């Protein structure tokens, strides 16, 4: 297993290299001149030329790439023109806000989605199963930003129960913080919960049908023990994989959810960077999220290898 994990870690290195390089190329392809964007359209040509020299934009492309690589490796992501500050501290200051809603959303999704999927599998083809699965299917088919708007419409506009935008502060009491989080978290939890319910159900159905579980039952072992200790444990690997994918794709949800609820996190930072053509900030945020994605995937794969010793990467099938 140690070999499997090592192999997987080594695999992640070229992926990181691809990500870093692709980010450089993509950012260079965004149209417009960073110097003009920074100085504004009225700037004199001399000032623009001077700034271009300062930013290293007159250097040959390979030199710019090497400088960028060295910067990234030292955690230097450049200077944000629209926020007037270093990019890295800016990203780190926005990160907690994003993590607070995405992680809470995912935890709730797991706590709701997985038991629903397991219950559905245990009562396959019952009315309960049918209702759960229809709800889950609607859940995975829902555009997250539409769900967000409908939540705002119902709970803020019509019922006036919850705030529609912004983040609460603890100085206004705990309820201020919680009430601002409810709608974004609900929004972010829905799709992962539905996806987890679907995969948990199908994975449990596969496991329950095996001879191993049948023989445990025939030996008179307590049903709850059979289900949660044996069947669920065996059904877990695909569920972990999907959970990992959901963690990784939570960021896409965060971009849209934060835009709707004006949540001051990484998602709104990226949208502002793109709209304001803040090149270093685009580069920094894109690179940051992609690197986080690679690391999360790596961790999920290692967990997967630990809970499911049969797995071996690239080997295909041998024990």
């Amino acid at each position, binding site marked *: 297993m140690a070999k499997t994990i090592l192999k997987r870690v080594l695999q992640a290195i070229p992926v990181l290299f691809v990500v870093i390089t*692709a980010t450089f190329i993509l950012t260079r392809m965004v149209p417009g001149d960073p110097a003009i964007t920074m100085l504004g359209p009225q700037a004199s040509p001399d000032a623009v030329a001077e700034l271009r020299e300062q930013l290293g934009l007159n250097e040959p492309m390979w030199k710019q790439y090497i400088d960028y690589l060295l910067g990234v490796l030292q955690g230097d992501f450049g200077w944000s023109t629209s926020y007037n500050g270093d990019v890295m501290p800016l990203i780190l200051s926005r990160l907690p806000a994003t993590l607070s809603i995405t992680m809470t959303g995912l935890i709730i999704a797991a706590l709701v989605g997985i038991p629903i999927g397991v219950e559905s599998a245990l009562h396959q083809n019952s009315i309960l199963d049918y209702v759960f699965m229809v709800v889950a299917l609607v859940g995975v*088919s829902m555009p997250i930003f*539409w769900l967000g708007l409908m939540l705002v419409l119902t709970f803020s506009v019509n019922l006036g129960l919850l705030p529609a935008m912004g983040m609460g502060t603890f100085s206004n009491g705990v309820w201020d913080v919680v009430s601002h989080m409810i709608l974004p978290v609900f929004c972010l939890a829905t799709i992962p919960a539905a996806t987890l319910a679907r995969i948990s159900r199908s994975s449990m159905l596969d496991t329950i049908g095996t001879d191993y579980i049948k023989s445990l039952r025939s030996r008179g072992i307590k049903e709850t023990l059979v289900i949660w200790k044996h069947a669920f444990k065996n059904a877990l690997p695909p569920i972990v994989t999907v959970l990992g994918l959901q963690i990784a794709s939570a960021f896409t949800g965060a971009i849209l959810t934060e835009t709707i609820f004006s949540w001051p996190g990484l998602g709104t930072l990226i949208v502002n960077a793109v709209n304001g053509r803040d090149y270093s900030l685009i580069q920094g945020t894109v690179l940051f999220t992609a690197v986080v994605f690679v690391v999360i995937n790596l961790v999920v794969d290692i967990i997967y290898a630990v809970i499911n010793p049969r797995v071996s990467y690239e080997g295909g099938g041998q024990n």
Partner: protein
Amino acid sequence: MAATENKGSALGVEAQLEMVRRERKANNAWHKLSRNKMAVVGLVIVVVMVLMAVFANQLSPYDPNAIDMTNAYAAPGSEGHIFGTDNYGRDLLSRIIFGARISIFVAVGGTLVGAFIGVLVGLVAGFFGGLLDSIIMRVMDGMMSFPFVLLALILMTILGQGAINVVIALGIGNIPYFARVVRGQVHIVKNEEYCNAERVLGASPVRILFTHILPNAMSPIIVYFTLNVASAIISEAALSFLGMGITPPTASWGNILSGGRTCLRTSPHIATISGIFILITVLGFNLLGDGIRDVFDPKQKQ
């Protein structure tokens, strides 16, 4: 002649033929799909939406871009406008019908582009293996590391807004997913006996790829394609919602929804109705995709 009179033996022949006929029918993918109720519902939704998109000119009661400021923000059910009107007094039903055309075109187009390139990449990587496979798959992993909407958003800033550019952006974003699905299938198929036999007989790799491996990899591709159209519809809407997709006045479900956001408090019908159409269509493609998967792979029942 005598045999037909003799009930016993005639029944034998007829019954056998009937059995063969029934068996064929039961194994026919189309028949299997038609017995799956959920899949049929999905298929009906998809067909209705596609017909709506194709016959938008005939079905639409108004010109989707006809501005009537005196009649702006009319509520649903008001005279002549079943779904009401938007901020320019344009008929919402007409815009939804024409929006179907753009949204479905972009979703299917983007998926097609991604599928075409992704399938080729996956075939090459899976078939030739070795270093080439490693390099290709690490590049694909790298592409998948960018959150999908974020990658599409950056590509849209590079390409500029517009329907064709959304197709390209979604297409590029979809490549690694198709490549992965196909590569996995190639690995399964390429060591089958008949492929080895072809190789021994001296068939070229290209021939083996396209006459044996690709057809065998087709069913997961079709399933993935259908499910992917569903998510592409949402992605187009997301891009338009972030202001980087289809530019108004051209109607797409995403930009109608986006427009509805600004007047959510006063005229909630615009965002509500456009979102419901997105939801139903995505649901339709998801049901159909699940159904097709059950037909091709009965083991993997959802």
